[in-house]
């Protein structure tokens, strides 16, 4: 009996895992392949461990701000991002990156921004306590 319950649970887990991989992002099937500049920026993001201080969708360290939608912030924008990444601030160290590397990270952040909005609007909260998010 115990083995049967375990087997059913494990099978459900495998099926759910496959479904998550294929369908968690419904729009992914229709989008074009990721641009190499974005991949490069993503790798630089990890190599410089930007996630230690910054969040994307609220995931990451809390030393600096969440950068999911920085690219669409009309008060900031590309020159603002360039200056911060290139020269750092009192709290953020300068990483001595080349201009090319800085722009690749900006490419990555612009791509992340297109995936959705990090902050869930109040209207998305359903009466049952869950969210209904329109992408």
């Amino acid at each position, binding site marked *: 009996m*115990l083995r049967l*319950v*375990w087997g059913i*649970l494990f099978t*459900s*887990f495998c099926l*759910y*895992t496959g479904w*998550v*991989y294929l369908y*968690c*992002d*419904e*729009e*992914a099937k229709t*989008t074009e*392949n*990721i641009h190499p500049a974005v*991949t490069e920026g*993503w*790798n630089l993001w*990890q*190599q*410089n*461990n*930007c*996630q*230690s*201080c910054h*969040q*994307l*969708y*609220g*995931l*990451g*360290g*809390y*030393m600096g*701000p*969440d950068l999911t939608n920085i690219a669409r912030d009309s*008060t900031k924008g590309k020159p603002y991002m360039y200056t911060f990444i290139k020269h750092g601030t*009192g*709290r*953020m*160290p300068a990483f001595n990156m080349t201009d090319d590397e800085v722009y690749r990270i900006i490419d990555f952040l612009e*791509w*992340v921004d297109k*995936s*959705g*909005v*990090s*902050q*869930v609007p109040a209207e998305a*909260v359903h009466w049952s*306590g*869950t*969210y*209904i*998010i329109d*992408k």
Partner: protein
Amino acid sequence: MPLHIRLYTKFVFLLLLATLVFGLFSSWAYLYPEVFNKYLPFYQLRPMHTSAALFFIISAATLCIIIFHKNTIGRDATTGIFEKTFITTWVATILVIFIYYSFKKFGGREYWEFPAWLALPLLLSWVLLMIGYYKGWLKCADKKPLYIWMWSTGILFFFITFIEQNLWQISWFRQSFLRELTVQWKANGSMVGAWNQMIYGSSLFLMVMISGDKTIALNKKAFFFYFLGLTNLMFNWGHHIYNLPAHGAIRHISYIISMTEWLIFISIIQSFKNKLEEARKLRHLLPYKFLVASEFWVFANLTLALFMSIPAVNRYTHGTHITVAHAMGTTIGINTMILLGVLGYALDIDKKINTGRKLFTRSYNLAQASLLIFWLSLILAGIIKGYRSVTLNINSFQQMMEPVNNVLKLFAVAGAGVAIGLGIIVVQYWQSMSDSNSNVKDVK
């Protein structure tokens, strides 16, 4: 005690000490970056702290299984070879990871920031552990006790989730940022469940040993909660990514499954009186003190987790220090307490720590009291951040964080208390191993 297990035990204690020291420095680097940025910036200290903590928890969990499975599952002639090869590869890879960190060489995802290729020797060593363990498990005639189920489940699911955690290295997973992040946090969330299975299994084994009552690892209620935990391991990882605009079903499934944890919550309250009675009888045992502490922290963190699992509440807590409170509350309050209890039992500290008993109790009390302040200050910091970012919608990060950083000063002071308290206990454990008569207690 065989030499390789003795050395592995010392390595585990060194990892815990490293976690405490790097954690302490990280909190200062967070508060005073202008002092640390030049030589030891926060982005370097944080992975050193988190990786040391993760590797301490996982290594200590495997150490407990290695120590105990001789008397539960049994060993054959080859078990020792697999154990030794696992320990050598595992320890060597972790040392290489820290060498990379010391040169600011990163490349992986959050919590596993080391260059990606180092995942391969870690995986290889885990496979060796699995072969050694499951060889004994297959031959074992009595697989009924729940702790054997839990160890077997934990070892298997760590293997699965570790592979899943590295799927980002396959380009298909990176075609969509939402997919990559979903899979990443699916793996991370379930991996926590995997090491909890290993650790709770050892905790249950310890309770059987202390009480001499084998039925607590055989009764139906215990198995019911095992399957409930397993279901949560498999399907309740979505609360990490509630705000992600991924498929809504992930959110709803996780929300529903997480609400089953209320059953655990109710069960803890129901068994409170019995636990109190048990605590009165066993309070003279030093390892038991850690189990009592872990019971409290399970209750506190479960309460927090239940609220965080409601998306409408998660909207205020996600991306704030409340999630840090939960992460640190569980890893220090639950995982570390259980592991110190189990290892203390294995090292027979009740007999070894005679003259230092008073110091031990004081350090234990300091660690618990500091951890409570540490945990509450993180929750308070999270509430302030959540309120200022979601309700007041303050756009300037500096302005939003101003009152939060004041609360975090209290967190840093309390963190020093945790580090000193646990640090002294670890040193006492270490000294008990240096005793010429020292040996791992033969667990019967």
